[in-house]
């Protein structure tokens, strides 16, 4: 199953989005929430993002979703550093993307479909 890493400036927010993906998917996917800078304030801690990727990796790929600024840049840099095509940063909003990706991943979809589901979650609300 594809794993998800949810990166927010706030750990509380990331945890709650993770909870939501568990509640809203028939079969929940492995999800790791990450948030906060190394001192615990709003921001990003790259070491924790790295650990989270490892924690949800079941061998079928990992999708990262990030909220803003440093979350996105940190995820982008980590994905580049890892140079592993099975670790992907989705260009998607955090909440909508996470729920869509979790539903797909839980249903056993492959990495590309999970990423596509997250990225399509951006449009069409109205």
């Amino acid at each position: 199953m594809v794993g998800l890493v949810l990166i927010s400036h706030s750990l509380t927010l990331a945890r709650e989005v993770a909870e939501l993906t568990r509640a809203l998917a028939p079969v929940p996917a492995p999800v790791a929430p990450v948030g906060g800078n190394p001192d615990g304030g709003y921001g990003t801690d790259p070491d924790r993002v790295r650990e989270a990727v490892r924690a949800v990796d079941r061998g079928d790929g990992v999708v990262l979703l990030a909220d803003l600024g440093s979350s996105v840049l940190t995820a982008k840099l980590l994905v580049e550093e890892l140079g592993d095509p099975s670790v992907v940063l989705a260009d998607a909003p955090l909440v909508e993307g996470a729920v869509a990706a979790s539903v797909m991943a839980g249903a056993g979809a492959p990495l590309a479909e999970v990423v596509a589901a997250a990225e399509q979650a951006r449009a069409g609300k109205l």
Partner: protein
Amino acid sequence: MDTRFFAAWLEECARVVHEQRDYLTRLDAAIGDADHGTNLDRGFTGIRQALAEHTPPTPGALLALAGTTLVRKVGGASGPLYGSALRQMGKALGDAETIGLAELADALETALQAVRRLGGAEVGDKTMVDALSPACAALRLAVAEGIKPQEALSRAADAADQGAKDTISMQARKGRASYLGPRSIGHQDPGATSTALILAALRDVAVAWAES
């Protein structure tokens, strides 16, 4: 310029960033989230600690370690940006034990490319790119004119400082300040300001080096 020179630069950056922490944070409070000074202070304190434990043998390895430390410790957008800038600079310097001005100018250009690639900012978007880019250009020109290092780095620092001041009239198109749209005009960008401080530190270390 050897490993000790670059270690002195990083040490001076740490000192200045700590000293100017509240100023940088105040600039970020106006158009961002009031953490730029705290973020960089945490990052450069991390560099100080890393170098106290172990000083790498070459300038390239030193800057690579400093970059990785910034990526890990800063916590804000400036972390991955400055971090990959220093890492790419380190990579560009290779394993040479001493670095000439021309190599330094090329490495700084690599740093600029790293920031632009990761953050996607262009000149005029009101970011650190607006200080780094003119500094690179000034240094390249000084190298072409065959000017001595302390003079050349002084021009680069002046260009960065002017670049930072020029962000006042710009509207932010990248980073948190862009949420303010036209309301970001009239404020100096914190990241461009810290870039100017970092390049002023490089000049100061080069001047002290030339005197000793």
